[in-house]
């Protein structure tokens, strides 16, 4: 496999890693909307908010990895 191909695969993997927390953030935000719209226990919303915060950090790390990969 050429080095170019390896490079593309690696980049795809890094992008996949960054997209995963974004996906969790999106779903947790949808869950919070449901909780608020339907008067559900606020604990669920708080848990989802914590997860969003955590996933924002993960996403940031993944983006940093992409930058480092590009620079390296």
């Amino acid at each position, binding site marked *: 496999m050429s080095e170019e191909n390896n490079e593309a695969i690696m980049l795809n993997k890094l*992008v*996949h890693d960054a*997209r*995963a927390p*974004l*996906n*969790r*953030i*999106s*779903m*947790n935000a*949808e*869950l919070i*909307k*449901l909780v608020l*719209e*339907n008067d559900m226990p606020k604990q*669920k919303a708080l848990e*989802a908010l914590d*997860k969003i915060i955590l996933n924002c950090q993960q996403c940031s790390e993944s983006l940093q990895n992409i930058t480092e990969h590009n620079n390296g």
Partner: protein
Amino acid sequence: MLNILLVDDDVEFSDVVCHIVEFLGHNINTATSLKEAHQWFENNTFDHVLLDFMLPDGSGLHLLDHLKMIGQSPKITLISGHPSVKGILAEMCEPNVGHLLKPLQREDLELVLNGPKKTAKKVKPSGITCHFGSLIGESEPMQKLYTMIERVAKTNANVMLMGESGAGKEVVAQAIHNASQCEGPLVASNCGALSKELIGSELFGHEKGAFTGAIARKEGVFEQSNDGTLFLDEVTEMPIDMQPNLLRVLETKKVTRVGGNKEIPTNCRVISATNRSLIDLAQNNVIREDIYFRLAVFPIDIPPLRDRKEDIPLLAKAFLEQLNDENGTSFSWKSEQLKELQNYEWPGNVREIRHAIHRAFIMSDPQSSEITLPDNLESPFSRVNNKTAEKQVSAGQTIEEVEKELIHATLDKVQGNKTLAAQMLGISTKTLYNRLNAYGGIGEYK
């Protein structure tokens, strides 16, 4: 309700999707790999599979092959983070395979699971006027109320709202606030819900370290509602020994935080509320007279719902319209249902009718546009309240009326047994018969 299998190795994502899908009214199971998905299909069938494209032990497409092999054909939605997957699927020409792109949204899930939303029939705008942005009703008592709100809104007088529980005191407070067009916010506080120790801090705020647990400085509700409106609900439930502090703030328009020594000027209209009657206030010493005159510069009586029954259809339509908007449904009332609502006394007032409509809304078949009212509109509270209300004696009743009521209540209690009723009433059976004859009501208890 669909039986759904979600195949995704991201456990946290799966967990949230489960919550959402269950809320949408479906059953959902999860698998984190192709192997687990195969196991689920050994003993189960599913209507729909939400399938991640990249799994730890292979591609999601392998599951499609496996399903063909075992002769199952659930609807499949492949979930991937790459738009190119859509192209691959198009080439496969599989009619029951769809595609969703990450990050997902709830609408995406709703669309693939429930199909395109039925366009709810646009109910004609009902044309119900919402007075002052919060009040509904065109009856005479409400028109009087609107006039009073309009008048008092132009002044900065303190208002005391009196009315039965559920009559809408907080909504009227909101209406006055809206009509006042003041700059500050409406801040509400329930004096009945606060302990004696905390009420000072809630109303006037506290300085850091004022008492154990006062870890930071806190603004009280008087400060928070500066240039706005302060709504003090259940003001008559405030401990009487705290009332002089409130009086001082009302008189001086200055507040001193607990543990502080600086006087902070406040400028807010105080709207207080109580569900006690004026006579109750006067007789039971629940509020100091000086405070009453400060708070009730402009007292407003909110009419109970039974005194404005003509507003019931308007309220019912407005509440149902709101529920339809929130839930994308298109339920509507039949005229006989509105009459049924109008015939009931609603001792719990607007709060009770709102609750009853919400309950009926939940119970109704979402596939139909007809709302189903329960056989009995009474809530457990209204039943108890009704009974107590029946037993209440009020000034203006004649002794004969009260006696008649007591005799009937006793007879009801003993299922019409006159000997027993006479014993309970402390009169002879003959006297009881005489009384019943005089009321002309003996037939009921024969």
